[in-house]
Structures are given as structure tokens and as C-alpha cells.
């Protein structure tokens, strides 16, 4: 079946008016089909603040260049009331923000009126005019406001954005004065022509009767204006878009507003198909009605033609034929990629290359690659490097490949793929994505960590030595992200609690090598067993120096090797426990073993894997102890035994030092 996401990839929410903007970024609608759309006021909607700001700023800079500072100060000093001065006339505020009002509005109005009448500089004169409108509005003196605006000289800086604001006030005042039709007409102008506040036109366009509607249609100067009225009705979520589209098409099928609405409806229909809980019967009726419209519309417009083909395929699940050669090719490819069941990388490569040739520059080019990668991720072998790379390519705007867990085998496969001669087009895509660039240091680091995880500390050391020197600068070292080339711990990895220290990767590995050597000679040394176990425990995901033993630590996921070194540590803790008679020491070891028991139990029941972040946050949340930790404890007989054993050492300093800890409370 044809992929049903070709018009929009993501879900949507919020105001209907913004959907258009959100979804237009990810679709298979050629820019050429909506080429004039840069002027679409619905784009402005989502960028309203910044656009307004930019416009005002530009405007201010322009006017400022024509004024001397003294002149500005002189104007400001005309106002004796400091509050008013600062809120209205402090020129930066006046220009950058909409003024806020303080004090008595009637007094403000008087001051503004004087200023307006006496002001010689056009820029300020117009600003005062706008402010007067605003105050009239706040005083509900709409008649006076209308009269005042009617009296304004429209030649005064006639291209100024301030006229947009004034005209919005004007339309609003007319509506308050019950001149609904005239107000609606002006709001339609606000919507279709304003840069800064077109959304006002949408929200305030209001017609309530057939008489008003007919009168409004009569006011239209041309067909395009009539079409905008319909468009404004159509974007009200309670109204029937398709009916409005039909009416608009009957006026001028080639209007850009028809295209805009056609596209919006297509997106809505796709939403209904993909996500909506609409009943099947209603869903079919909605699609059929739209198809009926498209079948009549398609011959005059490539957009309609393409949509017709798309929805036909979606409905009939068969390849559809359309008149446009270019878009037929697109549909063919989308149909092909959606229906492919067996991986043939060469064939996909050729077909993808061919279609990309047709759509070289548009957003379609980018989205064709993404949709292909999405499909490939389902065709590649599970957990294979290529599958990982395909996922990564698809999501590469969000993730850096190196942020994902990568082991030495993946690393080698990646390098192999990179060096492979005669790569397919797809393979090139997989490998050349900017975020997959693997630098030499990074390869060395992966190798050093990989050997560390296999407890091959000598091999690990050989690689670690090839990495740049670590300076005692935490900000250099503690960067798990892109710049991560250096590893060190700010904790002492041989202590069981958090102890400030600074161990470089090399220092850590050297110590582990030494301890390993000592244990070969003295396998029953309690202290050496304990220190070695601490090293293993602390280089794990749970340890105080995990940066030395894992590639990447995520707050939301457990990635890679996180249990092996813990299990290895357990062996050495048990050795240490067997070989000591010191009660303090025993208490410490038992407590470590209890921690390991808990981690093992969590691993067994898969709690971490399913919802690691939530589970861990609950683990640290004492209130949730009963719900989340208690079952783990009950599950682990080993833990229970260790806890029982620990009670023998209640008199030790260590026991007493931990018994107040919240974390210890879990273990009771």
C-alpha cells in the first residue's frame, strides 16, 4: 500500500490555523505546486512575534537614522508625567513593544491628542495616532475612534507597519459599532494583506446571517476577495472546508487560496486516515466526497492531479495513473517503496537516484530519502549496523550517531562499510551523513572502552595512551557529547562511596592492571579483592566512575554493557568477604553485595529495560519505595540473605553511618 504519510509526517495539535505551517515542512508537495505560498498569512501566524519585532526594529532603525538624539529627547521631555513618559514615550519601548497603560486613560488621551496635533515628525505623529486608537478602544469610545481614524492623513508614512495596527483597531471599532459587514470586510483585508497581525483577521472575521454574507460578497472588489471570505470561513474548525473549497473553486479554480485550502484539506484527510478515530463509514464518506471533488478539479492543476493519484492509491491500494509525468514518477516511487517487502539495495538505490533526479532541490528530495530510510530500517536485519544507520539517517536531526551505544564490532563494520569499494547509493547515504563522521580519536576511544569492558585492561591502556592528554579540567573531560575524546573520573573509582578525586583513564587502567597482577599472586588478599571489585563496580553504569567503563550514559536509557562488570565485581567482593575477619570491612562488603543483588534483580525482571528512567527515578524516590523497590527486594533471596548477614555488624561504625541514609532504608 502507498505510504499514507506523504502529505504530512507528524501528528498535529492545537489551533487549526497553525497546522498548515507545522505540516508543510514534511511532505511530498512540491514547492512549485504552492509557489506563491511565502505570502501565505498563515505562515506569519506562527512567527508573529518575531516578524512583528523585526518589522518594528527595522522601522525604528530607519527612522532613528534620520533623527538626532537631541530631537528624540526633546520629544520625550514634552511629557511631564514620568509614568506616561516611560510607558508611552520612552522611545525604545514605544518602538519595540506595544505600550502598556497606566493611570487615567482620559488624561492619557488628552496628552496624546496634544502630542499628535503638535508633532512635526511623521514617525512620532503616526505612533501617537496609533496610541490614541488604542486608548479610544480601551475607553470603548468606538465612534470617536472611527471618526479619528477617518480623519487621518493616509499619506503620512503610508508604507509604515503602524497603519496595519491602526486598521485592525478600525475594523474592531466598526464591529463594536455593529457595522458587522464592513468590519468583516476589513478583517478579511487584515488577514490577507497584513504582515504583523494577520491572525487578528482570522479571529475577528464574523458573519452571522445570510443577509450579512450576501452584503459582504457585494462589497468585494474582485473574485479574489470573495475567495478570501470563503477561506476565512473554511479555517474555522466548526465549518465545512470541502464545501467552502467547492464554492471557492466555482469562483476561480486557479486562485492560490484554492490551492492552500486544497492542501490543508488533504492534510486533514490524511490525518483522518492515519490517526483519527472516525468510524469507517464516515471516513469513507469523507474520502469519497473529497475524491469526487478532485476528479472534477484535477485536469486543471498539477496539485489536484497529484492528490487525486495519491488518494486513489490510498483508497484502491493500486498504482494510479495521473496526467502529470513528473508527479506520476513520484507516485510510482512512493508506491514502490511502500510496497517493497524484500530488500534489494541495488534496485532501491537506482530507483531512488532516478526519482531524486526529478526532484533535485525541493523538500521532496529530502523527504524521499527519509521515507526510503524509514522503509529500509524495516528491511534490514534486526539490530544490524545498517538498520542502526538507517534509523539514524531517518532521525539524524535529533541524534548524533556517537550518542548511541556502539561496540567494537559495530565500529569495525562501520569502518568496513566506509572503505567498501563500489558502494550502492544507499550505502553512500548511510555512511556520508554528516553526523556519522567517525574521527580517529573516537575509534581509539571506543576500542579502549571496549577492551575495558572485557576486562582486558592492558589492551585498553594501549589505546587510551593514544588519546590526547587529559588536563585537570572537568569541563574538558565531562562532555559525553560530540567533543568527547577524553575520559577521566572526578571520583575515586576504588572507594565505595562518592569520594572526590581525579582519576584519568590511564591512571584507572594502570591501577586495575596492578591489582589484577597482585591478585594472581595473592588471590586471597581481602583488600586487593575489595579494591579490584570496587574498580569493576564503579566503572559500570551504576558506579561513581562510569565514564571510564561505558561509552555513553543516558539519563533516559540504559545503553550497552551495564551488568557484566557488576557480576565480575560480585566475584571479587565474595572473595574479599571470605578472606576477612574485620567486622567493619565485612559490613562494607555486604552493603556492596546488597546493591549488586538489587541491580541483578532489576536486570532479571527487565525493569530497567522497559522504562529505565521512570524506574530509576522511582528507585531514588523514598516515597515510592514500597511500590517499586520492595517487590525487587522480595524477589531476591540473595539480597535477603545479605541483609540478614549485615545485621550481625550492627555495632560497626559503617553500619551506623549508613543506617540513616535514605538509600539504606530501602534495604531494610
Amino acid at each position, binding site marked *: 500500500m502507498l505510504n499514507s504519510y506523504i502529505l504530512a509526517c507528524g501528528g498535529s495539535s492545537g489551533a487549526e490555523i497553525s497546522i498548515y505551517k507545522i505540516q508543510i515542512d514534511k511532505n511530498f508537495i512540491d514547492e512549485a505546486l504552492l509557489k506563491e505560498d511565502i505570502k501565505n498569512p498563515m505562515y506569519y501566524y506562527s512567527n508573529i512575534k518575531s516578524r512583528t519585532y523585526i518589522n518594528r526594529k527595522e522601522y525604528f532603525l530607519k527612522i532613528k537614522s534620520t533623527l538626532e538624539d537631541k530631537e528624540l529627547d526633546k520629544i520625550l521631555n514634552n511629557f511631564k508625567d514620568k509614568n506616561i513618559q516611560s510607558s508611552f514615550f520612552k522611545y525604545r519601548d514605544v518602538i519595540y513593544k506595544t505600550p502598556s497603560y497606566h493611570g487615567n486613560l482620559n488624561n492619557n488621551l488628552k496628552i496624546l491628542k496634544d502630542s499628535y496635533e503638535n508633532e512635526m515628525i511623521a514617525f512620532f505623529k503616526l505612533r501617537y495616532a496609533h496610541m490614541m486608537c488604542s486608548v479610544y478602544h480601551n475607553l470603548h469610545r468606538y465612534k470617536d475612534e472611527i471618526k479619528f481614524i477617518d480623519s487621518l492623513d493616509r499619506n503620512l508614512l503610508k508604507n509604515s507597519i503602524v497603519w496595519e495596527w491602526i486598521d485592525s483597531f478600525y475594523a474592531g471599532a466598526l464591529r463594536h459599532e455593529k457595522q458587522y459587514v464592513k468590519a468583516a470586510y476589513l478583517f478579511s483585508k487584515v488577514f490577507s494583506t497584513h504582515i504583523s497581525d494577520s491572525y487578528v483577521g482570522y479571529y475577528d472575521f464574523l*458573519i*452571522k*446571517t*445570510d443577509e*450579512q*454574507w450576501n452584503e459582504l460578497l457585494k462589497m468585494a472588489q474582485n473574485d479574489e476577495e470573495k475567495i478570501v471570505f470563503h477561506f476565512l*470561513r473554511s479555517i474555522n474548525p*466548526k*465549518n*465545512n472546508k470541502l*464545501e467552502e473549497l467547492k*464554492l471557492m473553486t466555482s469562483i476561480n479554480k486557479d486562485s492560490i487560496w484554492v490551492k492552500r485550502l486544497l492542501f490543508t484539506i488533504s492534510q486533514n484527510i490524511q490525518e483522518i486516515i492515519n490517526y483519527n478515530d*472516525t*468510524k469507517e*463509514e*464516515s471516513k469513507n*464518506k*469523507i474520502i469519497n466526497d473529497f475524491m469526487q471533488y478532485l476528479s472534477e478539479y484535477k485536469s486543471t492543476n498539477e496539485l489536484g492531479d497529484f492528490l487525486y493519484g495519491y488518494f486513489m492509491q490510498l483508497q484502491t491500494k493500486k498504482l494510479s495513473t495521473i496526467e502529470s509525468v513528473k508527479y506520476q514518477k513520484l507516485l510510482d516511487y512512493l508506491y514502490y517503496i511502500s510496497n517493497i517487502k524484500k530488500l534489494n539495495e541495488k534496485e532501491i538505490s537506482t530507483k531512488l537516484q532516478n526519482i531524486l533526479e526529478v526532484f533535485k532541490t525541493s523538500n521532496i528530495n529530502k523527504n524521499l530519502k527519509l521515507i526510503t530510510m524509514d522503509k529500509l530500517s524495516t528491511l534490514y536485519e534486526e539490530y544490524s549496523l545498517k538498520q542502526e544507520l538507517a534509523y539514524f539517517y531517518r532521525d539524524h536531526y535529533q541524534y548524533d550517531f556517537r550518542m548511541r551505544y556502539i561496540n567494537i564490532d559495530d565500529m569495525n563494520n562501520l569502518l568496513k562499510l566506509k572503505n567498501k569499494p563500489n558502494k550502492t547509493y544507499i550505502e553512500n547515504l548511510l555512511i556520508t551523513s554528516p553526523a556519522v563522521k567517525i574521527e580517529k580519536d573516537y575509534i581509539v576511544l571506543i576500542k579502549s572502552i571496549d577492551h575495558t569492558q572485557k576486562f582486558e585492561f592492558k589492551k585498553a591502556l594501549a589505546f587510551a595512551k593514544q588519546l590526547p592528554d587529559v588536563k585537570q579540567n572537568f569541563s574538558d573531560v565531562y562532555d559525553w557529547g560530540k567533543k568527547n575524546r577524553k575520559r577521566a573520573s572526578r571520583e575515586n573509582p576504588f572507594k565505595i562511596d562518592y569520594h572526590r578525586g581525579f582519576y584519568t583513564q590511564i591512571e584507572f587502567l594502570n591501577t586495575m592492571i596492578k591489582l589484577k597482577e597482585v591478585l594472581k599472586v595473592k588471590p586471597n588478599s581481602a583488600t586487593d579483592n575489595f579494591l579490584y571489585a570496587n574498580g569493576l563496580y564503579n566503572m559500570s553504569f551504576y558506579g561513581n566512575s562510569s565514564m571510564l567503563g561505558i561509552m555513553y550514559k543516558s539519563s533516559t536509557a540504559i545503553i550497552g554493557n551495564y551488568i557484566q562488570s557488576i557480576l565480575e565485581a560480585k566475584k571479587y567482593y565474595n572473595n574479599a568477604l571470605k578472606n576477612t575477619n574485620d567486622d567493619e570491612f565485612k559490613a562494607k562488603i555486604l552493603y556492596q553485595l546488597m546493591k549488586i543483588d538489587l541491580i541483578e534483580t532489576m536486570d532479571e525482571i527487565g525493569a530497567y529495560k522497559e522504562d529505565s528512567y521512570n524506574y530509576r527515578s522511582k528507585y531514588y524516590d523514598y516515597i515510592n519505595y514500597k511500590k517499586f523497590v520492595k517487590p525487587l527486594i522480595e524477589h531476591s533471596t540473595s539480597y535477603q540473605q545479605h541483609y540478614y548477614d549485615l545485621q550481625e555488624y550492627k555495632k560497626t561504625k559503617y553500619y551506623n553511618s549508613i543506617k540513616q541514609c535514605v538509600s539504606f532504608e530501602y534495604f531494610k
Partner: protein
Amino acid sequence: MNILNKLLLVFILFFAGCNDDTTIAFYSWKTKCKIKNDFKYPMYIKVLDISKSSTIKTSCKYKKPYTPVVYIDNNAFKSNKNISKIVLNTIPKNTKEVQFDCDWTPSTQKKYFKFLKTMKSNYKYISATIRLHQIKYKKTTGIPPVHSGVLMFYNMSDFKSFDTRNYVLDIKEGQKYLTKFSYPMKLDLALPLYSMASVFRYNKLVKVIDDIKAKDINKNFLKLKANKYEVLKTHYFKTNLLYKGDIIRIDEVTVAMLKKSIDIMPFDFDKIIYFRYSNLKDWDIKELEKL
């Protein structure tokens, strides 16, 4: 139905429901209430509308004594809003009766009931509205700690469903909630006077138009079955834009429906409060008195 059941029904109809002493009253639900000062029936006026984000006080120039009603949106109890304080600051403590209207749920029950206890200790007499589901599922929703309740016998169906027969008053639907009736509290009855139209497009509710009756239907509609009509022409209807093909369902109430509602009530009540005063223009108040 066997003879025994018939006798039981006669018995219920005879002893339960309306009696000669039943009085009628009206709810006013507008934010700006406009009640004529010569209106002779008791009034229940919504004086406060409390939600999570807002508190709206009614402005009212009505000079006669009336029972203030406080509407509290259920979600308001999910916030830290001090609802008791708002009520106590608005309604004087010497008020004869205060009524509370809240569609509480098990999740807000504790807070709502605690609030009602506070109110009970501050006012002489408090009552609360009770919805049908709160009668049927009283074990889950609990019995509010008030002196008496008012059963709201309206809005008993699925608001959004195209298949709903009559959202305002569907006696068959209402009866489902009243089988095996028992409620450990004195109840009065609230009945609807209002009407509305629900507009469906592709079987989906798209808008509701208030205060529409079948008599408002004109040539732009085609009667389908029962209370449903198809829109024949795109046009503005009572300030609402309707499109060709839309289906509207008109939910209205007749005197006969009110009478039947009263007849099937399986409990005694002293008072019927009609919702709402602003719809009274469409009714003959004497007929309501006779019910």
C-alpha cells in the same frame, strides 16, 4: 409484565412522585441575571461559577429573596483554589439555603465532601445537585454530606453520539438509572425547559446551537426521522453557519415529557426546580404548575 409487577408499578406511581404540596421553582443560570421583580415563584440563582482558572460572580438586580447556587467545575477541586473562602466571602452566613452544583467524581469526592462539611457548619441549610450516575453508582461516588439533594433529571445521554435520541431529556435512558432506586437522602427534582440543536457532519458532532426548537425549522431543512433534519442549503441559521448535508438533531422537551418524568420518579419530592428561567418564554407557567 405479570400482575404482581403491574400492581407494584401502580403502587409506586400512586405513592411516589408528585403530591399536592409540590411547589415549583426556577433556576437562573446567566451571568447577568434579568429576573422580573414581580416574578412570584421561588428562584435558584447561580451566583458563583468556580472553575480551576476562573471565578465568575453573577451580577443580579433581583430584589426578592432567592436561593443562591454555587456551580463548581469538578476540576476546580484538582487545584489549590480555596473554594470555601470564595463562597464564604460571597454568600452571607445568614442565608436560608445555599445550593451547590458539582459533577463530582471518585477522584474529587474527598475534597468536595470536605468542602460541603465546611459549608454545612457555616450555613443553616445546604443542598446539592445529584446527577443520575451519582444515584446509580452511589457506592462509588458517595452520598454528599448535605441536608437535601436535587436530582437533575436531564442531560442523561451521550452528548456527542449521533445515535442519542434526545440529549436534553430521554426518559427511557433516565429510567435505566432509576431501577432498584434507593438513596438515603431527601431529594427534590430538577427538570429541563431548554432546548438545543446538535449539528452533525459525517456523523460527528461539530457544534451545538442553543435554544432551538422544531418550530424554528424552515424550508432549508428536510425532515428525516424523529427529531433529525438534513440541511438542504448552506446558510446561516440563528447566527450559525450550516452546510448542505449537515444533519441537525433537535433536542426539546414537551409538557407530556415533563409529566411522564414526574410520574416515573420513584421517590417523594416537595419541589420541582425547572432549568431554566430564561427559557420560560416558551412555556405556559400554569401548565407547569399543574404538573
